[in-house]
């Protein structure tokens, strides 16, 4: 059976486990219809021209994976940022792991989507925000149809959340192929501040497809710093659909660190519904083998006096392929917009590929929009210079590539995240030198 048919016919079984007499379920059922109509994206769609899911979708994915094998903390500790105190919302094969999590309801809520969907005290937040910024496209609709679990974060007004929140999804490979649909909702009210770290991690070599939807709502003067660490198993694929709705004077940054997996597709969408908003989208991609990473970003400037900053760096080795499609829309009303986009790529191997496409649609006349895109190789003269000073070629290459990617790390505000990413980069570049640049 084709995966699409399998998903559609599984819906009845899914309904056995959720409250079908709710507004949310109406949203789900509509989303299922939408997915039925649209199906999986094909390369015929302009937005999927350079990323094919065809081979991936041939897997016989288990849609409701069994509660996987037990996971011991010692086996997964390495995937946490564990040297600082954090809140944790952890899922194993799509199901909540209370053992690995550390949630709170004290002054704000860091907990589960399933409880938020079912308990009346969350009803008004869910009704106001759930599926309100997410696009109704193919894969988002699929996720919405099956949305039942994920992280639910609600920060009321004037709260500076002191500890970062980690959202981690493990897949244990208890089935030959596992598909999950994590659904996160993050609502940050006026003048509050939160830091979030998200990771998807497969624990075996079995095939995984995670189709994630995250909605972020940043109210007036709210600040959200979001870090996505993508360093998964070679057979694990990820479609990350993140939608950010910002109100006046809010600042939201999303850093995406893509160090591989099988196919990684990031759909990162920002909507600026207010003035004096700052949206920051940054990414480092370092991949090799036949890995594929696709960044599709959208910044929609709707109102005046807002800014957006995009900086994506990519290093592609062997036969890896990358995509950067950065779309900026500046509406007619959005005067005095300052939109900046930078995308720099290094092709380390003759066989690696990058498809880079800046897309600017500007309808206002008093704006500053800049974009720069480069594709290059490592500078041989710089390598010789370093070798001449005693730095071997391999380390020299590592140092050059690290320096190239480093500008993106400067804006990472959690030191432990920065040092973790630094280590992952050193590891990716297979160099062992003190990277305390």
């Amino acid at each position, binding site marked *: 059976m084709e995966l699409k048919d399998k998903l559609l016919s599984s819906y009845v079984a899914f309904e056995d486990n959720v409250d079908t007499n709710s507004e949310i379920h109406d949203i789900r059922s509509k989303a299922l219809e939408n997915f039925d109509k649209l199906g999986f994206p094909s390369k015929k769609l302009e937005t999927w021209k350079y990323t094919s899911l065809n081979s991936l979708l041939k897997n016989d994915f288990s849609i409701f994976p069994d509660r996987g094998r037990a996971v011991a903390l010692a086996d997964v500790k390495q995937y946490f940022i564990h040297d600082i105190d954090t809140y944790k919302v952890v899922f194993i094969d799509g199901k909540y792991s209370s053992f690995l999590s550390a949630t709170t309801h004290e002054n704000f809520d860091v907990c589960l989507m399933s409880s938020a969907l079912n308990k009346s005290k969350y009803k008004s937040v869910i009704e106001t925000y759930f599926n309100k910024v997410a696009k109704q496209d193919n894969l988002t609709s699929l996720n919405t149809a099956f949305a039942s679990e994920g992280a639910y974060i609600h920060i009321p007004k004037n709260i500076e959340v002191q500890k970062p929140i980690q959202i981690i999804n493990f897949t244990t490979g208890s089935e030959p192929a596992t598909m999950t649909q994590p659904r996160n909702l993050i609502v940050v009210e006026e003048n509050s501040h939160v830091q979030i770290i998200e990771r998807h991690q497969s624990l075996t070599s079995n095939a995984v497809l995670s189709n994630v939807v995250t909605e972020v709502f940043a109210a007036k003067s709210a600040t959200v710093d979001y870090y996505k660490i993508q360093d998964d198993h070679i057979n694990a694929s990820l479609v990350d659909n993140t939608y950010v709705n910002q109100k006046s004077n809010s600042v939201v940054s999303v850093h995406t660190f893509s160090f591989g997996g099988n196919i990684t597709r990031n759909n990162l969408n920002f909507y600026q519904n207010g003035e004096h908003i700052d949206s920051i989208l940054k990414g480092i991609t370092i991949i090799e083998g036949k890995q594929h990473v696709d960044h599709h970003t959208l910044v929609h400037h709707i109102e005046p006096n807002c800014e957006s900053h995009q900086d994506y760096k990519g290093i592609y080795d062997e036969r890896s392929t990358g995509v950067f499609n950065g779309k900026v829309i500046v509406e007619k009303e959005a005067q005095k917009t300052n939109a900046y986009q930078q995308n720099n790529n290094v092709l380390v191997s003759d066989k690696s590929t990058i498809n880079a496409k800046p897309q600017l649609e500007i309808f206002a006349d008093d704006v500053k929009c800049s974009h720069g895109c480069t594709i290059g190789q490592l500078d041989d003269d710089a390598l010789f210079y370093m070798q001449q000073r*005693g730095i071997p070629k391999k380390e020299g290459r590592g140092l050059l590539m690290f320096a190239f990617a480093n500008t993106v790390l400067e804006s990472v505000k959690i030191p432990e995240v920065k040092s973790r990413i630094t280590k992952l980069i050193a590891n990716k570049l297979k160099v062992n030198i003190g990277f305390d*640049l």
Partner: protein
Amino acid sequence: MLKINNLHASIDEKSILKGLNLQVNAGEVHAIMGPNGAGKSTFANIVAGKEDYEVSNGIIELNGEDISELAPEERAHNGVFLSFQYPVEIPGVSVTNFIKTAINETRKAKGLEDMPAKDMLKKIREKSELLEIDRKFLSRSLNEGFSGGEKKRNEIFQMAMLEPKLAILDETDSGLDIDALRIVANGVNKLKSKDNAVIVITHYQRLLDYIVPDFVHVLHDGKIVKTGDASLALELEAKGYDWIKKELV
């Protein structure tokens, strides 16, 4: 220290060095002068191990060991230093971290531990004072946005940090004003000892007022065609290179 015998080299099938001979002993300063296109920078790059050149014939020995098959970093570990005519800009790597990495990679190649941070800092302070380098300069990205003079001063700072056995200064005087020239030359002179050697490549006699050579060689058409003492440089300054070319005919 350095012995070069009958060196032939080409790039893209264009022959540049055509039988170069040179012997440099420890404690000596040699100047190599010559007109544009004589092969001076090629010579420097080949001794440092740049891979773009095809060495078809000849021997390069450092302290009795043939180094012609060694990678550039291995030559550096053996004590070869080249001050580049055009130092490369490396954005994102600070001067301090670059030199730290260079020193520790060299130590690693010799089976030594990393230099303790305290010693490293002390040495950086000492050598930056020697070259009158502002501390703020050390945290800037390597050569990025440096003036010509700053780049050259930074080269000699690195030389001071690495303490090479054989230093080749490729047109280190170009782009320097008189004050910077004096500082750089003073730095080189302070580093000179009976155990190391310096080869100065230059167009002009000016630098040699400060770094006084024991030997002056004229490189022309890929060969050393004349060798003399410091007075040869003065003579070249006064008369140009044409008289040597005529002598050769």
